[in-house]
């Protein structure tokens, strides 16, 4: 094994340790506290979000339909 391969192997071992150690830490506030982050939620949960939102809107709208004013009230209003 040549010297450069040996050195690179050592570098690789250190890099694996660094990768797995620092991946466990939260990113700095400089990274997390900003407005222009990539909206991964929008990208990956598009379909589920649509289904859930549609179901919740349906649920919200259904009791409102039963609370509609009756025909008599409409007549009073006209008077």
């Amino acid at each position, binding site marked *: 094994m040549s010297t450069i391969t040996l050195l690179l192997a050592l570098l*690789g071992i250190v890099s*694996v340790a660094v990768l797995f150690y*620092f991946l*466990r830490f939260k*990113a700095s506030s400089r990274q997390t506290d900003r407005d222009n*982050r990539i909206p991964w939620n929008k990208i*990956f949960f598009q*379909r589920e979000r649509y289904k859930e*939102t549609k179901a919740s809107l349906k649920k919200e709208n259904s009791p409102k339909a039963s609370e509609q004013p009756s025909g008599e009230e409409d007549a009073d209003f006209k008077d």
Partner: protein
Amino acid sequence: MSKHAALDRFGKSGNPLIRSDLFQKVALDNEEVTTLDGAVNKTAILLALTVSTAAISWNFQGPMMGLISGIGVAAAMISAIATFGLWIFSWIIKPTPHRAPYTAPIYAAGMGFAIGLISQQFESLFPGIVIQAVSLTFFVAASLLLLYKTGVIRPDQNFLLIMACATLGIFFTYIANIFYAMATGSSFSIITDTGLMGIGFSLFVVAIAALNLVLDFDIIEQAAETRAPKYMEWFGAMALVMTLIWLYLEILRLLAKLRS
């Protein structure tokens, strides 16, 4: 009220489906959530799977192993498309992250067989190249992780767009190369050339693959921050392993060109 109310409103949809609070996908109270530790453990599991199957195909060469590697790559591709969709064409096949706990191990194992076979061939031509490529892959990944965590590289939507365009461009170049090779029996010279053009192209592809790691780190970070469901750990780990495998293969190719 903020004097920037109009600015705040700008870009927000009037569609109630989009305006709803459910826009943010978070885990339910009784559901387990994504953590950074969990994502790291899943990444380690997937990498161990890849290395294990790579070791099998490295040690047991032959036509049977070629067939197994072919099946492995096909299974890996199907798993990747089933999970990520055709990301940029997401209106055709949408991403389905909840499949990741099942598809990620298939992807890792399948690609491992192919990597073992490819690595063995490169190693027989250029002794020591595999150790160098593996080491450089993890060195690049660790460096970019530090740059990401410290906020030196801050990916935004423009960065995502540039990366998506560049990655797609490389993908189409490789696809066109396959068809060209089938028709003429030779590859694009820019891909196989060992001259300055070929090395330049390989350097460009390595740079794009490396910068894709930043997006993977961001997926994992945001999933943990927003308390995404547990399966996002597998999804983030799969994305990271996919990019690491791509980066490794490109570095292997670059080193081979440099040694030729």
